[in-house]
């Protein structure tokens, strides 16, 4: 228990970050030149951190699994980034953004961290504009905003439907500038396979060069993990194909606690599953809920006809449509948070009102908006999303309503970090989606980009200095140290073991089966029996994996099957911890919905008395029950309340 010290500074909420910055140590320019930092991952968090640390004068090594840092999956975020600028004069403020985020997370995130996030949100917008990010503007030349779920003000900045891309290109450009200067060395097509800990402190990583297959050692004074979430555990998700949980999982196995692993976000507006050849699900931006209205038929006969393909959505008259979000949540309507919208869609489909051949889809309709604003306006706002929808489904969404269904999109859980973003292993930091700290049980839309950049540009570069100030006498890490030998040997053994199984099933077939188990038992609605069953099934599958997987080729070459095999081996273990965490949390909160714990209206029912804490799991050995730790959450400044999006 002693390890879970949050290091949240004393004092009033609005003074905490300022006074903390005043009190932490800094490193002089001459000493920064002597210190080395490894950053793993180049999404918004990793790229912005590596660039900012390079600017400060540290020696940075940055790793990414793609051919270029620009491919990181932050690039796929469509709708926007939140900031409390109050440019719209709609009474927004740092406090309001903080409060919306805490409430959206269903009171399971750390108050001080979330307040700091809201505080630095405004700096992010300034920074990005200075970098040349072409945000949407109005005719007066000033920045425009749109609305997102879980909020009643317009605070979301956007660059068409490609906000993540533009912010990442900004951070990537800043990174490129440092690479050119020589302060950052970039290692594309490298995958971290282990963390190296010497005398209790993070001192480097083992990585595989994905082109040559060579296992390489890299030493440093500190390691920053920015490798995103682990939602690909479910196989079908909105994540990119290479997104994986292996880096954080190795950190967990080297002593970093894993917090709230069971908190995964299911996004309500994705293109529905189409068939068993499908490899991923495509998101339709939440921004569409600004103008799109979600509905299913009121009459079950109409739903049956839609499922049989006898009629189309546009043929159902207005009075026979059930705009169920507007009906159930009058105050927020179509802009309720994601977990609420997802469950409401599932509820209607489970009741038989689904609108496609699988019965697992609802309509997202723009007819009202097109009548009100004209097709031109809708096209200017969402043109690329309508085009994407048409390419995938061959349906013109200007004529027919879109069909959508919830899908796995984000993981709120991640490595446990303190206020400094440091893990339970000294010298190891986790930023962005890879940590757990800011989103509680549910993340609000347009907040992932905000957190990645807040951590990378404005928080980590300060807080890591406090640790590194104590490292200035420490010599360069020797990669011949026995800890490196041992880590490298363990990796080589694991790879050889995988090749030697020589079984009959492909890695993908196992991954798909794992995904089915996860979606069935650890998905949108969970219960005790199902979770126990899920754990059992995962264990069975994992056993078969190590007896029957077939990994072709060899290690010392470009081998995508081996890459997948290593990642799926970890997903099999991560999935079990997710289920275990969900089993232990006998309450419903945010995206974690335990069927046993719900209100009469079918809303989540929290149990603040027993579960107002962050769960943090400590690895104790393979096939052994991990230790369960709790970080109690104290709300000193907000009144904890039941989430209400009705009035």
């Amino acid at each position, binding site marked *: 228990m002693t390890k879970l010290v949050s290091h949240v500074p004393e004092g009033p909420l609005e003074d905490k970050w300022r006074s903390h910055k005043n009190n932490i140590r800094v490193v002089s320019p001459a000493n920064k030149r002597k210190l080395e930092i490894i950053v793993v991952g180049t999404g918004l968090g990793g790229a912005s951190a590596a660039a900012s640390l390079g600017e400060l004068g540290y020696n940075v090594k940055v790793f990414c699994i793609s051919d270029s840092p620009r491919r990181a999956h932050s690039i796929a975020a469509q709708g926007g980034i939140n900031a409390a600028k109050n440019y719209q004069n709609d009474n927004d403020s740092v406090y309001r953004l903080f409060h919306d985020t805490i409430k959206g997370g269903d009171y399971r995130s750390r108050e001080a961290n979330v307040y700091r996030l809201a505080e630095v949100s405004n700096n992010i917008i300034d920074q990005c504009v200075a970098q040349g990010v072409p945000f949407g503007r109005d005719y007066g030349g000033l920045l425009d905003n749109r609305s997102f779920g879980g909020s009643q003000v317009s605070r979301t900045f956007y660059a*068409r439907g490609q906000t993540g891309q533009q912010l990442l290109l900004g951070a990537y450009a800043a990174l490129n500038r440092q690479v050119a200067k020589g302060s950052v060395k970039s290692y594309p097509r490298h995958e971290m396979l282990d963390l190296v800990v010497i005398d209790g402190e993070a001192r480097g990583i083992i990585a595989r060069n994905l082109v040559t297959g060579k296992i390489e050692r890299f030493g440093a004074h500190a390691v920053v993990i920015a490798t995103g979430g682990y939602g690909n555990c479910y196989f079908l998700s909105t994540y990119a194909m290479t997104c994986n949980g292996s880096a954080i999982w190795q950190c967990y196995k080297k002593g970093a606690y894993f917090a709230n692993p069971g908190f995964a976000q299911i996004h309500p507006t994705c293109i529905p599953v189409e068939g068993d050849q499908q490899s991923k699900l495509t998101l339709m931006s939440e921004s569409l809920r600004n103008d799109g209205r979600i509905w299913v038929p009121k009459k079950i006969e109409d739903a049956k006809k839609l499922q049989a393909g006898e009629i189309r959505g546009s043929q159902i008259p207005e009075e026979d449509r059930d705009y169920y979000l507007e009906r159930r949540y009058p105050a927020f309507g179509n802009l309720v948070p994601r977990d609420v919208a997802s469950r409401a869609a599932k509820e209607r489909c489970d009741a038989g009102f689904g609108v496609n051949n699988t019965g697992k889809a609802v309509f997202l309709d723009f007819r009202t908006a097109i009548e009100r604003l004209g097709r031109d306006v809708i096209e200017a706002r969402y043109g690329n999303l309508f085009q994407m929808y048409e390419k995938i489904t061959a349906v013109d969404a200007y004529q027919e309503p879109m069909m959508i269904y919830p899908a796995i999109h984000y993981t709120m859980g991640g490595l446990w970090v303190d206020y400094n973003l440091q893990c339970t292993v000294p010298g190891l930091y986790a930023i962005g989606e890879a940590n757990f700290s800011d989103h509680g049980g549910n993340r609000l839309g347009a907040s992932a980009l905000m957190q990645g950049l807040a951590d990378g540009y404005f928080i980590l570069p300060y807080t890591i200095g406090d640790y590194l100030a104590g490292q200035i006498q420490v010599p360069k890490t020797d990669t011949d140290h026995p800890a490196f030998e041992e880590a490298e040997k363990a990796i080589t053994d694991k790879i050889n073991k995988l090749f030697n199984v020589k079984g009959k099933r492909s890695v993908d077939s196992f991954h798909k089966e794992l995904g089915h188990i996860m979606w069935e038992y650890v998905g949108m609605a969970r219960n005790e029996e199902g979770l126990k069953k899920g754990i059992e099934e995962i264990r069975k599958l994992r056993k078969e994996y190590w007896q029957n997987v077939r990994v*072709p080729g060899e290690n010392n070459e470009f081998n995508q099957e081996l890459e997948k095999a290593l990642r799926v081996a970890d997903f099999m273990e991560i999935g079990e911890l997710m289920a275990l965490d969900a089993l232990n949390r006998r309450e419903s909160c945010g995206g974690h919905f335990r069927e046993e714990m719900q209100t009469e209206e079918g809303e989540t029912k929290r149990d603040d008395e027993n579960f107002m804490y962050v769960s943090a799991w400590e690895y104790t050995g393979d096939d052994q029950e991990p230790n369960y730790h709790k970080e109690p959450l104290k709300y000193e400044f907000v009144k904890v309340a039941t989430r209400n999006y009705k009035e």
Partner: protein
Amino acid sequence: MDFTLKIWRQKNAKSKGRFETYQVKNISPDSSFLEMMDILNEQLVNEGVDPVAVSKGCKDKNTDPVAFDHDCREGICGICSLYINGRAHGPDDDITTCQLYMRKFKDGETITIEPWRNRGFPVLKDLVVDRGAYDKILQAGGFVSVNTGGVPDANSIPVQKEKADESMDAAACVGCGACAATCKNGSAMLFVAARVSSLALLPQGKVEGARRAKAMVAKMDELGFGSCTNTRACELECPKQISISHIARLNREFLLAKLKD
């Protein structure tokens, strides 16, 4: 749907490559092109050997799964890079390969799949090429020289909406390399122009406009890309419809830089 696939196979950067033929069956018209490739690879892993090849006596046929770059599969990361039936990103307009669907092909068709063709993009394995050159070009100047922190308020400099929109048009580039792979001169001009023009249109980027253009063009030449002769093939194949008018703006910035020399 059934297809015959002629795929470029090459063990690594140093070895010689050649085409191999494979069959895939029962592909859904709603599957994406990359999902069809997944099915082929699943088949190759499961069979270990290709029964068709064995029956025809080609024992030395390459039956390892085919390496190809792919990631987001929603048309935004820019990593996918296949030359399909002689076209970058295949027979559909304004898409990357991952957004190409099998309904665009005829049942029974033979499909030829090659890696990007350009001297600047050497093949690493099969259909995977090295696009590190694009990173290097951007490192030469594709940024605004500001550090983190100490910047003015975002609304302190108004930007004409039309200019911001045009900047966004150019910034939509995903860095896939289709332009350079399509150009008969092997020029990366559209890629370079997209970045130079996007930044030159904004007051924040304008400051270094001329210097940036000069540095990036020099790097492009150094890395072995060809010159632009305005054939406009790049514009046609660009998945993000980036216009060659941005090349005109690049030329203007470049000329300005040269005049100052």
